């Protein structure tokens, strides 16, 4: 089959690889009908996530048709049309029972690697480094899905791929980020990053009752999307002092909640930005927490900073003094996707939410190398690309 493989920094290729096989009794094989490139795939593309190996199949956002099931699979049937959550969860450990699916205690065969870096291991993730499992990803014609009765959710035929696909990651991720803000009537939410997760976070913040949402980015087209599709007010951080402007916009209080949908590769104009770029290049820090620092500074005292953006390791100049002295709550985590599948699919079915608005491009799987380039360099106003493997 054809699969998108990582071959080093900013090098992905379409490789011919063996078809997946059932390796565990509870596995299923899915014929991928749609897959997407996630903003977090760009961290892999740019070489910032450790323990990647040349030849790794990428991709953790995919859906398709079940073509084979292992002996231990009870609920899923061949022919089912399913979306697959990006974290792999067993459904039986204590964390899974508590609906903390992205913290499944059993799904990472390489848990010891993650323990070295992070103390304990989170769940395994499709196509996202060896430290997070070494699982082949879903940017391929077929994919093996472990614990097939726990993760995948059946999608009714009348819902097209473009509406269902993002249940795999970015829609629940945006939703969980907004949910973490514990929004109360009158709340103002600021969102750093107007990529797909940021756009969903904006939408979900309104859905959960936010009075105003302010979106922050530097690309005019992304800010336009945030205004037109999200209904947010927008700030271009290259054109204004974010902190002062947010203060002015909120009567001097600061936003009640701040969402960092940027993660480890943040940008900033001027000296701070250059400082982090140099430190990251010299490996003195693994992440550039520019958006996170800004969010903490901007957040009102006693407010919440919610972090769906991906961080990999160790941050520098982290303003913990502000967090402590101003009683700021930080909430983060890989999304517990399984928890949100049913309620969000219901909202899609009821037409309360149409996630397909983020799709700006559709390409063939073979065009993935080009798609990665375009997405990484924000060319052709790309917001989200859906790849068709067949």
């Amino acid at each position: 089959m054809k699969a998108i493989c990582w071959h080093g920094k900013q090098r992905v290729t379409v490789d011919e690889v063996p078809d997946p096989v059932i390796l565990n009794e509870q596995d299923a094989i899915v014929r991928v009908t749609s897959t997407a490139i996630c903003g977090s795939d760009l961290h892999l593309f740019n070489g910032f996530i450790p323990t990647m190996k040349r030849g790794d199949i990428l991709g953790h956002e995919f859906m398709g048709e079940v073509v084979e099931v292992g002996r231990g699979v009870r609920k899923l049937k061949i022919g089912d049309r399913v979306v697959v959550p990006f974290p792999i969860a067993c459904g039986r450990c204590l964390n899974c029972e508590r609906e903390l699916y992205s913290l499944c205690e059993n799904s990472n065969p390489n848990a010891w690697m993650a323990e070295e870096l992070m103390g304990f291991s989170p769940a395994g993730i499709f196509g996202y480094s060896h430290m997070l499992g070494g699982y082949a990803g879903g940017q391929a014609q077929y994919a093996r899905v472990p614990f097939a009765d726990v993760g995948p959710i059946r999608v009714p035929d009348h819902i097209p791929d473009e509406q269902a696909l993002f249940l795999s990651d970015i829609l629940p991720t945006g939703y969980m980020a907004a949910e973490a803000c514990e929004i109360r009537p009158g709340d103002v939410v600021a969102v750093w990053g107007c990529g797909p997760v940021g756009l969903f976070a904006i939408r979900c913040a309104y859905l959960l009752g936010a009075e105003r949402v302010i979106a922050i980015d530097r690309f005019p087209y992304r800010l336009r999307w945030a205004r037109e599709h999200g209904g947010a007010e927008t700030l271009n951080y290259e054109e204004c002092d974010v902190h002062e402007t947010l203060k002015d916009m909120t009567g001097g209080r600061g936003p009640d909640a701040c969402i960092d949908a940027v993660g480890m590769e943040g940008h900033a104009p001027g000296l701070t930005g250059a400082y982090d770029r140099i430190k990251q290049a010299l490996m003195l820090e693994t992440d550039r927490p520019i958006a996170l620092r800004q969010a903490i500074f901007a957040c009102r005292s006693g407010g919440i900073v919610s972090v769906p953006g991906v961080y990999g390791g160790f941050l520098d100049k982290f303003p913990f003094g502000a967090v402590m002295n101003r009683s700021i709550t930080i909430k983060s985590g890989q999304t517990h996707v399984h928890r949100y599948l049913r309620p969000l699919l219901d909202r899609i079915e009821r037409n309360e939410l149409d996630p397909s608005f983020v799709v700006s491009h559709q390409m063939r799987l073979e065009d993935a190398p080009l798609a990665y380039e375009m997405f990484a360099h924000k060319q052709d106003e790309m917001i989200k690309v859906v790849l068709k493997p067949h």
Partner: protein
Amino acid sequence: MSTPQVPGPPHPGDWRMRGAPLPEPSGDVPGAVTEPLPPGQHDNGRPDGLAGGLGWMSLALGAAATATPERVAHLIGLPDERETRGVIRAVGFREIASGAGILARKPPTGWLWARLAGDVMDLALIGSAFRRDDVDTRRLTTAAGAVAGIAALDALVAQAMRREAAPVEAPVEVIVFHAVTINRPAAELYGFWRDLGNLPRFMRHLHSVAVLDERRSRWRAKAPAGMKVTWEAEITEDVPNERIAWRSRPGSRIHNHGSVEFVPAPGGRGTEVRVHLAYEPPAGRVGRLMAKLSGENPDWQVRDDLRRFKQLMETGEIPVSESSFTHGGPARPPKRRRWFRRRPSTY
């Protein structure tokens, strides 16, 4: 949580000892007392002469490897590449250094150990070369055999010279402790473990456990370099649903004793499974070093075995990813043929 190589069992007040203490080492475990070797086993000149020979050999090998790395590469079946030549040349310099060291120092014990470390490194390098498909496997195998033979000789000579130099140390007992919380009732976990034949399902280094009678069992385990070791064990304590302790039977080649406890975790969080294991690595320090280099560290073994026990008991299977089959290779489906050959044993 692990305890790196504490000599002797943990003291009674140790937090790890909540519950019952470790069984004392059985009488057949040698080395509770340090015995100095009887005098008069030195000055026959043999190790020294042999050591000198090994020193000259190092020099000759080193000279060949630094001067004509491409020939050495051909000899051991490697393709002639810049990278290969670089590695061989580096190995050559190392050989010259240890050769000179052995010849210059009396007694040269330290340098002999350095030689042995070099041998182990060479074996590791040759081992990694096997993964490539552009090598002459037959020549490479011969080279590996030769290096292994030389390593054995180095070990013997170094051991002999150390015996002359210092009284023999007590065999080092390695003590390992790990705990894992499993979301299942204690009785179920105890029952699975007590049926000893189940153990190889999650203890990767075990080949089989045959139950001989109520107390005795025969264990077969994989040893480094494709060897197998067998020993007999007996259960010394058996408290249903709470605790099992065992030790190797007198006369076994492998000396170990240990226990597993099943303690209900607070707040209905399942069961804490705590494993103590004390064992004497075969071949003492060298064995331990070799085991460590080949990834057979007992501390990691117990940790990983317990993780697999948890996976098996909670989910009914031991999840594997594509990378579990490519042995350090990329995360992509293995070819079917190779997949069967390389299947993890616990599956």
